[in-house]
């Protein structure tokens, strides 16, 4: 069992939790992910590592309640435990594996969208700890749903906020902000790391391809085991099929087939919808409404 030692509401149905998992805390690195299974009947839910404390033996996860399972997860309280918590899975961010001297020559821009801000944080924190200044853009629809602004401000050299409605910071999305920095302010970047919803990573990658800036994205496709066994997480990357769980989760954004990945992500939407209904309606779920085939 893996105990929840901290729980915090960030915004916009996004929750942060610290989980007691000494083996994982000892070995995990930015860019990797864990799998949570709440109880006997639960799904295996992959979540990117958002921070870790090697001394306390805790791993931080951040998740948004988007379906039945994540809603149930948000109902867990401090002191309660998840049945299973496994990791670290996937490869660490390729940047942190680069020789430090070479990394110091890079000029890196991180672009975060929504809940994707969380997995960017440990990477930027790692950069700061290793004396590397990086710029960060946090993009959100509106001010109220922005997360982790303060911690990010502490570790980023320059933090740029962009909101679609202009309620805070720059008015526009992440791509608009990149254009503003590169085209209007004359900033130059040797690399972009974009983490967020697939649609956002797709458009950032299209833009940076045009701008000629190599770009890393972190993919979060559907997974089951997360150790390379099932192939559910396969992606078309260039002319190869890659497994996000063992080959990723980070890939070259200019090679990923995002359209296919987005179609694949919607594969279980109907089943998940049914599950949510079943959970909400409990015993009355099979009410004979005639709208489904009884399942």
């Amino acid at each position: 069992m893996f105990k929840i030692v901290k729980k915090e509401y960030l915004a916009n149905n996004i929750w942060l939790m610290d989980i007691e998992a000494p083996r994982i805390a000892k070995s995990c690195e930015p860019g990797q992910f864990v799998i949570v299974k709440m109880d006997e009947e639960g799904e295996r839910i992959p979540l990117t590592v958002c921070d870790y404390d090697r001394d306390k033996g805790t791993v931080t996860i951040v998740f948004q309640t988007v379906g039945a399972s994540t809603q149930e997860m948000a109902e867990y309280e401090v002191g309660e435990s998840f049945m299973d918590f496994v990791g670290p899975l996937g490869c660490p961010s390729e940047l942190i594996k680069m020789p430090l001297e070479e990394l110091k020559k890079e000029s890196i821009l991180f672009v975060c969208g929504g809940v994707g801000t969380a997995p960017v944080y440990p990477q930027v924190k790692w950069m700061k700890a290793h004396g590397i200044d990086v710029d960060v853009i946090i993009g959100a629809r509106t001010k109220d749903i922005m997360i982790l602004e303060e911690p990010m401000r502490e570790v980023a050299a320059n933090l740029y906020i962009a909101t679609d409605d202009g309620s805070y910071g720059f008015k526009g999305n992440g791509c608009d902000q990149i254009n503003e920095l590169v085209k209007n302010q004359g900033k130059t970047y040797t690399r972009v790391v974009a983490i967020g919803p697939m649609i956002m990573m797709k458009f950032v990658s299209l833009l940076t391809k045009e701008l000629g800036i190599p770009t890393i994205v972190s993919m979060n496709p559907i997974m089951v085991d997360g150790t390379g066994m099932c192939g559910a997480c396969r992606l078309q990357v260039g002319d190869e099929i890659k497994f996000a769980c063992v080959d990723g989760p980070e890939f070259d954004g200019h090679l990923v087939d995002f359209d296919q990945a987005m179609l694949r992500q919607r594969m279980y939407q109907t089943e998940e919808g049914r599950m949510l209904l079943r959970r909400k309606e409990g015993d009355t779920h099979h009410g004979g409404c005639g709208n489904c085939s009884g399942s």
Partner: protein
Amino acid sequence: MEVDVLKRIPVREQDPKVRAANFEEVCLGYNREEAMAEASRCLKCKNPQCVKGCPVNINIPGFIKEVEEGNIENAYHVIGEYSALSAVCGRVCPQESQCEAKCIRGIKGDAVSIGKLERFVADTAREEGFKPEKTAEPNGKKVAVIGSGPAGLTCAGDLAKLGYDVTIFEALHKAGGVLSYGIPEFRLPKTKVVDQEIENVKALGVKIETNVVIGKAITVDELLDEEGFDAVFIGSGAGLPRFMGIPGENANGVFSANEYLTRSNLMKAFDDNYDTPIIAGKKVAVVGGGNVAMDAARTALRLGAEVHIVYRRSEEELPARVEEVHHAKEEGIVFDLLTNPTQIFTDDKGNVTGMECIRMELGEPDESGRRRPVEKPGSEFTLDVDTVIMSLGTSPNPLISSTTAGLDTDRRKCIVAEEENGQTSKAKVYAGGDAVTGAATVILAMGAGKAAAKGIHEFLSK
């Protein structure tokens, strides 16, 4: 009970029509009377050939004699000297090509039903609460076993009996490896059989730590250098599923057999009370002809689909066990033989709408000795399926080999290990099962686990 020495006592099974709609076990097994009658057919050969056909060399005439005399507990202990997983082996071993293939009775009539007798003994042991024999005194030496599948459980069980302090590390949340995630409930019941076998191994003193990914959370070298293990056995199993590389293979509705079976078996997606979804499909094509293909096909059938096996060679070359093919046919699975997929069609949402196939014919034998299937030009046709399950085997998972210095792999990226003792190229590290051989059978993995236990014991006794 009347016995015709040339004919085996038939074993009771669920009616095909009934079982096609449930996940209960297909084979119901012998009762005591049937088992004793079948045991009486054994010739108790002085030079038993059946034992040579068994990868773990169980004293087969020895346990059958005890069954014939009604001493089931004795029979259990005879088997227990060789195998810790008799309830599993009695169900999933390919006896027809191993022990039973060598049975002298089989020359003129039916071979003795050794597998069903083993199963009867194991099931009786569980029902009556027989316990494995006592183990040796603790010898103070620690061994780590990676993977809790058939190879790992066997190796751990044998070492524990010899007095070793054994810890199994399992990457998934549940122990059992392929016995838990791969083989379906209707062939190998989980709670009744698999969990019980694992409990038996634990009763020998073996500790099992689930949710630990070796190569990620901790490496093999760290197990040896930091956690104080004297030796490590790697039984991490087969690995990454293969795909064909045809157009449309990433469509929604195309699964690897591993994914489909893991959702159903490990995550229990077939049960409404569990949260993991599975797409049952209305019409399903399973591509491949091995045991895993049969398992996937029969799972899809039970979830309500019309199921076709699509296999590029003919029935004779099907790698699956005859019994599995027979059961699949009885249940209504259609075999599209000498047929090979060429592309998968999708709608604008990326869902499968059909699969184009081409007819094949058998040409000259290839390097495997089987006749090579060749395409018949112009014979393309479309199967109007909405789900495709690819069951084409696996390639090794690099998690451990890529994080362990000095551990050699072969051309296929399988770990290299000596057959007789499991020794790898790295000192103190042993390996066996699918991680070494590529996808094979439960009993071969058990044989390798057993050989490695012996190798580790010899090494640590020096």
